[in-house]
């Protein structure tokens, strides 16, 4: 796989068969893509509307991107953005919280771990729907698939919250049974986790969360398996999670109220890709100087958003119309592009 063959773009109706393949391949409860043609079509249509919408911030938009290997002319992954967690309603999480209870007389001071039901992440922009074909999981393709979203958000910041979050799958066995759910959610619902998940489907979990206890959960009172599951990642989530961690997302504060998986969050401006991003202009008089390094590069279009991996001089402020970055993104003289180094802290300049 040649990094130069990878292109990330908004999903199109023609991608429906590819999404069906992805929805079938992605494990239960891991992908947020429904394994159902009609629902997938609806997801694509909602995404088309979101990209096309002139309205800046209704908050209900969900954007879906696909990653294409141009050499094979095949979609090999997808990723998404939900503009506002909870769609103007509450978005529930458990916040890890530590309190110290002490008795001088008994000579005891205990640091107690509690889970605190909160709406802290309501309205945050959510990164969703990450899936990449196993054959592409090594190398830079997942970086492009995950991080191009951040540059999209940066470019169209008025459509998004400046704080970004992403849910990650928690521990569950082959049948989808989750030890965290068994110890917490199940006490309030007479059903299995997969059943509860199916009930909520793609919709807001708030109406279910309303049924959860509103006082803190003392972790010490949970069975050991549930205690261990708090903040634990399902193995299938490791790749997208590690990319977000390297970006600077915080994984220690919030967990999913259903399966206890870590929900990461960060301010957009503190994310590595955004901090190192800079704008270039296509300029015929440009002088390319400096060592070439791999970059994520995106154009400044919304509907025709494109993201690629490309080698650029590190300190470049311009690119020539004939340069690879301009030609592959289809940019003409005077157009802008936003770029960020693929491995900003790396000395291996050509890691892909």
């Amino acid at each position: 796989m040649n990094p130069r063959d990878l292109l990330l773009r908004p999903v199109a109706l023609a991608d429906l068969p590819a999404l069906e393949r992805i929805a079938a391949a992605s494990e239960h409860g891991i992908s947020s893509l429904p394994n159902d043609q009609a629902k997938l079509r609806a997801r694509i249509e909602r995404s088309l509307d979101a990209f096309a919408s002139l309205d800046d911030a209704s908050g209900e938009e969900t954007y879906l991107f696909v990653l294409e290997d141009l050499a094979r002319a095949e979609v090999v992954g997808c990723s998404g953005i939900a503009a506002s967690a909870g769609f103007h309603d509450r978005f529930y999480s458990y916040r890890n919280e530590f309190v110290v209870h002490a008795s001088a007389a008994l000579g005891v001071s205990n640091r107690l771990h509690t889970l605190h039901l909160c709406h802290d992440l309501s309205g945050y922009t959510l990164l969703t729907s990450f899936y990449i074909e196993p054959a592409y999981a090594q190398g830079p393709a997942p970086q492009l698939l995950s991080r191009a979203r951040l540059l999209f958000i940066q470019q169209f910041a008025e459509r998004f919250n400046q704080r970004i979050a992403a849910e990650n799958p928690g521990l569950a066995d082959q049948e989808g049974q989750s030890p965290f759910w068994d110890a917490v959610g199940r006490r309030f619902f007479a059903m299995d986790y997969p059943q509860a998940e199916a009930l909520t489907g793609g919709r807001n979990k708030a109406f279910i969360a309303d049924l959860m206890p509103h006082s803190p959960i003392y972790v010490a009172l949970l069975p050991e398996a549930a205690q261990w599951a708090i903040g634990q990642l399902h193995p299938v989530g490791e790749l997208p999670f590690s990319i977000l961690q390297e970006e600077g997302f915080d994984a220690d504060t919030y967990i999913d109220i259903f399966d206890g998986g870590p929900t990461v969050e960060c301010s957009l401006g503190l994310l590595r890709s955004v901090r190192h991003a800079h704008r270039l202009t296509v300029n015929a008089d440009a002088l390319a100087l400096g060592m070439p390094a791999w970059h994520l590069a995106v154009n400044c279009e919304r509907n025709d958003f494109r993201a690629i991996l490309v080698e650029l001089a590190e300190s470049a402020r311009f690119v020539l119309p004939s340069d690879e970055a301009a030609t592959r993104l289809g940019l003409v003289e005077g157009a802008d592009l936003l770029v960020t180094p693929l491995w900003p802290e790396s000395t291996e300049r050509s890691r892909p």
Partner: protein
Amino acid sequence: MTASENEHRLCVRGQQAGDLASMSGWLGQTGVAPDLGGGEGEWLILADAASGAPLACARLVEQLGMRTPRFSYHVGRVVHAAAELGLFRTQTTLLLGNDHSGESELADLACAPGLPAEVQTAYLTRLIEAALQRIQAQAPRFGERLIVELAGPLDERGQAPFWQGLGLHFYAGDRQAAQAKFGDAWRSHLAALLPRQTLYLSFLSEAAQTAMGQVGAAGQSAAKALAACGFASSQHVRVDDGGPVWELRLPPKSEISR
């Protein structure tokens, strides 16, 4: 009836010098020895009228928890309902508090060891009635309710399932040793370590859930005597062994003064 015959030769009196020695080894309705040395309040001793030997005791406290706060869990209910899911579940909740502060208490209900259960119940009934008479005579000094704590159940190894399922997670030390060292204040110290927000009973072990609010062996005779005198559960349980707190509503002061 032996018990009722016995009562003819009984009297209720205050504490006397010799009682401390004669009453060593007695166990009260909460499963621990009566606090003969330090407890506040007034002692009522049921004694053999002839010999003066103590047969049963109780301690009447005008207002509890005014020196050291007294803690208990209030047992409440919360309904979690979602019509669209057909869900309607009632959960039992526990909330740590000092709800009985300022109420009156009957503590240290104990009998001389070895008495038949019927006799114990009869003796304790006699003491409870004596206590109610004291209260009626000096109503303004007492609270709105008279409460009695009762021991929770123990399992075959002598452990309290409620403690194993709840308190032990917050105090890993020896409960009996702490009780022996601090007396009643031990549960105040314990409370500083316990959860301060509403707990859901369903998060505790099955054994702890079952034990919550049940009267253990140590409290059975007292429970029978209390029930006979009109006491019933106050919807509170003890913070350590989950034994129930029973209460009797005392007559309103205004009625008495009329």
